[in-house]
């Protein structure tokens, strides 16, 4: 599937993720926390002892598949997913350089229900990866509001301005939704 076919599916899934499931979690969350805490600990230890597979986050409390546009961190992304290009949700593929300046978005983690500020550092220095194009755009603003604009090539301040792919890096809990 291509950009825009994916987009409608993603929009639907995004709505589902942010509404029905959230209400479900809000209703049953407390019970689930108690029920899952103890069994989760060995799993967390096992995850830290090996490199995570590319299709899992490898981080406790960070659900989803970093190779999928549905992954919660990608709510305001527009580009190729580095996790599909030899990198991960928070690392650039070999031979590419993360941009020091980025656009940011605010995405809700379905696991803890908190809004996090996500920095979408582009990885730079090679041609476009061409895999896992993702175009979600929550909170995306026009070019004259650049800090929230995902249309800009953010390969700036890097050795090369060539765009390869985008990451989604947690930089903190949001105190307000940035718009």
């Amino acid at each position, binding site marked *: 599937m*291509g*950009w*825009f076919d994916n*987009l*409608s599916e993603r*929009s639907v899934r995004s*709505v589902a993720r942010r509404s029905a499931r959230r209400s479900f979690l809000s209703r049953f969350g407390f019970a689930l926390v108690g029920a899952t805490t103890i069994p989760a600990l060995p799993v967390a230890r096992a995850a830290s002892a090996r490199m995570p597979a590319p299709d899992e986050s490898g981080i406790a409390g960070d659900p989803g598949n970093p190779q999928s546009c549905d992954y919660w961190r990608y709510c305001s992304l*527009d580009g190729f997913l580095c996790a599909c290009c030899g990198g991960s949700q928070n690392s650039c593929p070999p031979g590419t350089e993360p941009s020091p*300046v980025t656009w940011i978005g605010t995405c809700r983690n379905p696991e803890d229900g908190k809004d996090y500020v996500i920095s979408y550092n582009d990885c730079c*220095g*090679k*041609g*476009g990866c*061409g895999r896992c*194009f993702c*175009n*979600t*755009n*929550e*909170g*995306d*603003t*026009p*070019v*004259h*509001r*650049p800090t929230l*604009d995902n*249309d*800009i*090539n953010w390969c*700036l*301040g890097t*050795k*090369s*301005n*060539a*765009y390869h792919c985008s990451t989604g890096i947690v930089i903190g809990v949001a105190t307000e939704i940035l*718009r």
Partner: protein
Amino acid sequence: MKYRLGIFFALLALGGIVAAELEVETPRTATLPAPNAHWMWIGDLNFNAMEASKAFLVDGDSGQMLGMLSTGYFFSSALHDSQYKNIYSPEVYLSRGTRGERTDIIAIYDPKTLEPTDEIVIPAKHYSGIPITAHAAISTDDRFIAVYNFTPAQSISLVDVQNRKFLHEVETPGCAEVFAAGARAFNMICGDGTMLTLKLDDSGNTEPVRSAKFFDPRTDIIDDKMARYGDSWAFFTKSGKLQMIDMAGGEPKFESPWPLFTVDEVADNWKLGGYQYATICEQTNELYVLVHRGGEYSHKDPGSDVWVYDLKAKVRTRMISLDHAATSIQVTTDAKPLLFTAHAEHSGVHVYDALSGVHQRTISEIAVNPLLFWAVHP
């Protein structure tokens, strides 16, 4: 006797074949005839290999591709002077394709031959990203070009077209995009809801002036998609209001905004969307916008329909249901306009009779990712 007749007819046939033999050819290069109003340029972002961006020229009447430009890295669109004597194409090059030294130029092409005839080196700061119409502008007297820079410091590079040289950079903190504003001025949109005016003297010197605030970026932000209407520009707010700005005198004159959608249509989630969703035919004074039904963040979704508005009466006059969903549209500027459409994900462009809305033809295999149109004004 039979034998002699046979030889006679065989020789006759051979003679016929010799007479029909094709002439020997030598390779040559085509040149373009005089342009007409139904020619259209379309930029190719070529997203998987942006170092090889392109621009294609097509004829909407014949459905033929006429030629192409190779336009470097992350190309948006080209400009041309008022008589279509020169094409000015802001282009970015990296010396090793995707790495190495960066050089930004305004490449100059001959519109008849499509050959590069000259270039002007400008600071290596030109905005790169998903193409926007207002990444560069030429003054209406053809004297200056302004190129929008983003490093992320914001500025414009001013170019003297007449002497084909870069003049200087003007810092424009907080302001982006650039629009021709009459003979000797450019305007920019600022993130705080104001507009910045740069009036130029003959040397390109300017003292930028800020307007009053004309939109609220937190409640109903002006978008970075717009359509030119003579010396005015039509802008659009996120909620679907049209904000016409008269720039004939340089400084912006803000007209009263008016809604493109009824209350029912807003409730029905009709929205503007795409990468180039608005275009105006000056001959018919009609605005064409690409619309779809979608959610809050569907502003890049393809449009299913084109709605047409009479700009004088400020009313919708026609609704065109597209045969092919589109993310970009452009109408030609003549009295019998064609409407071109493209979808950024699909190669090829579609041509409609803009007045009847009837699909005329598809010009296939044009661009990998067709993004921005710009019309030829002969």
